């Protein structure tokens, strides 16, 4: 619960609650003033005009008429309260109150509020109790002449009980409304904080599990499609990438263990034997060991290159490169070697747009494909490098031969590390050439495909192609 109060969402809600309650209070005050302020002023005006009217009557027609009119008005069953009192005798000459309210003694000339008692009349017309009511009024002295000894006190008031009751009720309602707003705001804030905290907790829980070593954990998705889910999606994507890299690392170390352990064992055994052997045999053993060491270094370097390419490191800066130009350079480099191995190497390049890539990596991929063709297309006599633009503006680069090809069910395996098909066990090689091509393809977002190559008699040949996505300027 206390955690909930510390959440950022709750703090924000709190600010909103304060601002919103302030607005509600201001609105309430405004409505209150508008409604009751005007009403109270109106009451005072009525009282004043009544007194002025009575003063006019007194001046024009004298105390007799005044007394009659006060009596008439007092008889009206409305909110009006009237009293005419003779002074200094204090006799009540007319009016609907039996005595002046106590508050009149201290009030002076201005308006004053007072309470008075009125009998409650039931339906049958009998008195059933006393109603304590509120009134507001004013007293004025009427003198016939400025120095007259006797004068009249005129008391005019209005009953404001209903008005006051309404005002009290409204005031209470505004306060209640304000409290309800604050309470509701706090509750909504807590609910919000709770919901967001639960989602953030899910992220934290996943992060802790992953830190504890469970890389397969993912943040559960709420399906809400909101920004929090978007964040979860992105984090999950990041976790996928991390897991992929970790698996890649594990695979690399497994592969190193697999491919380096056997030659290392061989080297150790050979050296152990050589210790007991005669000098000529020692020399032979050393030479063989040196060869093994060279091969292991080659394997090791190839593995590291693949790992680096796959982690996106060492690719150098990706820039606009011309695949046709790269293919031309490689064709030129390999042409003599191909010729010597009995192959005709041809470059069939059509103009193609530039692709985003690394010259070094693409060169190496082509070199590996050509190395492979030279090594494994036994019995073939043609190798072709083809470059062209696809209908979707992508650039396809293929290396095709007319050797024995690869059976369809072996094709998906050939890009895996250390895979060397049974038929090629006898040739030398690390079995990493195509894995590197595959890593280069991934680094470029290129699609790698294997298909039949150039036909020659009943040989289907092999064609490996890389389709680079259309170049997008960034």
């Amino acid at each position: 619960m206390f955690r909930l109060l510390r959440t950022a969402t709750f703090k924000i809600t709190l600010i909103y609650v304060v601002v919103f309650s302030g607005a509600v209070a201001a609105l309430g005050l405004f409505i209150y003033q508008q409604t009751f302020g005007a009403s109270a002023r109106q009451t005072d005006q009525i009282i004043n005009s009544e007194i002025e009217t009575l003063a006019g009557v007194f001046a024009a027609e004298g105390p007799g008429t005044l007394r009659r009119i006060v009596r008439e008005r007092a008889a009206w069953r409305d909110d009006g309260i009237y009293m005419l009192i003779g002074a200094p005798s204090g006799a009540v000459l007319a009016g609907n109150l039996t005595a002046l309210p106590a508050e009149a003694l201290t009030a002076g000339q201005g308006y004053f509020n007072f309470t008075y008692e009125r009998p409650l009349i039931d339906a049958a017309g009998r008195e059933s109790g006393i109603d304590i009511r509120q009134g507001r009024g004013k007293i004025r002295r009427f003198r016939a002449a400025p120095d007259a000894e006797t004068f009249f006190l005129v008391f005019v008031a209005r009953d404001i009980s209903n008005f006051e009751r309404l005002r009290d009720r409204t005031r209470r309602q505004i306060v209640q409304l304000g409290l309800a707003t604050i309470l509701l705001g706090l509750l909504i804030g807590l609910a919000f904080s709770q919901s967001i905290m639960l989602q953030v907790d899910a992220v934290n829980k996943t992060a802790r599990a992953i830190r504890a070593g469970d890389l397969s954990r993912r943040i559960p998705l709420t399906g809400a499609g909101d920004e929090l889910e978007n964040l979860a999606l992105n984090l999950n994507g990041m976790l996928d990438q991390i897991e992929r890299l970790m698996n890649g690392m594990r695979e690399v170390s497994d592969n190193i263990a697999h491919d380096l352990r056997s030659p290392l064992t061989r080297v150790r055994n050979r050296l152990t034997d050589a210790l007991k052997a005669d000098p000529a045999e020692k020399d032979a053993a050393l030479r063989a060991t040196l060869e093994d060491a060279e091969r292991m270094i080659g394997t090791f370097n190839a593995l590291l290159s693949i790992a680096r390419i796959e982690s996106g490191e060492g690719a150098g800066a990706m820039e606009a490169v011309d695949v046709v130009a790269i293919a031309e350079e490689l064709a030129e480099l390999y042409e003599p070697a191909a010729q010597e191995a009995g192959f005709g190497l041809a470059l069939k390049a059509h103009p193609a747009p530039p692709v985003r890539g690394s010259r070094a990596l693409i060169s190496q991929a082509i070199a590996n494909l050509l190395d492979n063709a030279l090594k494994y297309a036994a019995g073939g006599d043609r190798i072709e490098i083809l470059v062209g633009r696809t209908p979707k503006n992508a650039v396809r680069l293929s290396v095709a031969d007319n050797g024995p090809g690869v059976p369809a069910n072996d094709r998906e395996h050939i890009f895996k590390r250390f895979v060397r098909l049974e038929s090629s066990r006898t040739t030398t090689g690390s079995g990493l050439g195509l894995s590197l091509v595959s890593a280069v393809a991934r680094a470029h977002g290129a699609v790698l495909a294997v298909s039949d190559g150039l036909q020659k008699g009943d040989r289907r040949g092999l064609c490996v192609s890389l389709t680079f996505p259309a170049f997008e300027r960034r």
Partner: protein
Amino acid sequence: MRILVIEDDTEAAAFISKGLREAGHVVDHAIDGEAGLKMAGACDYDAYVVDRMLPKLDGVSVLSRRRAEGDETPALFLSALGEVDDRVAGLKAGGDDYLVKPYAFSELLARVEALGRRRAPAQVTTRYQVGDLEIDVITRTVRRAGRKIDLQPREFRLLEYLMRHAGQVVTRTMLLENVWEYHFDPQTNVIDVHISRLRSKIDKDFDRPLLKTVRGAGYTIEDAA
């Protein structure tokens, strides 16, 4: 040549020093970056061989400090970091060449000797001559015994590189890096075939072969009298 080897791995340093001494060079060895910096300042060397990762002061810093003091001695970086970016960082710091561990000693020797040669008087040479073979870099002509030989542009660059390092061993990797500008090792004998084509053009019709294969190392062009 007098060579300073800055390498913290004593076994590797002993191996390099022994090999370089056998090739007729004078070798000093520094065990860490600070010692290397001191020794480089105290003595005039013809070449530095610097490991990139050193205790106390790393190889790149050692070299950039020497360069800041106006020391132009050519330097070869040794590194376990092999990718193009690392290579570029090393060369930017003032290195002249870059060799990735593990390497064959013949490769190291060939590269160090090529560096030492670079230091020779920096007059701009446009003509090279080995025996009766001469090339002119400006006119791009090759003559042997006065007879003009036609070469493809790449063959010319290959020959030019060999001629510039006449008398030195040039490895296949050096050729691939300097003539073709690739930094990977092909699995097949691509360079050898280019060499044999070149050889058929410049040596075939003459009594004395100039372009020679050095077993287990590379090639050299020289007029061995």
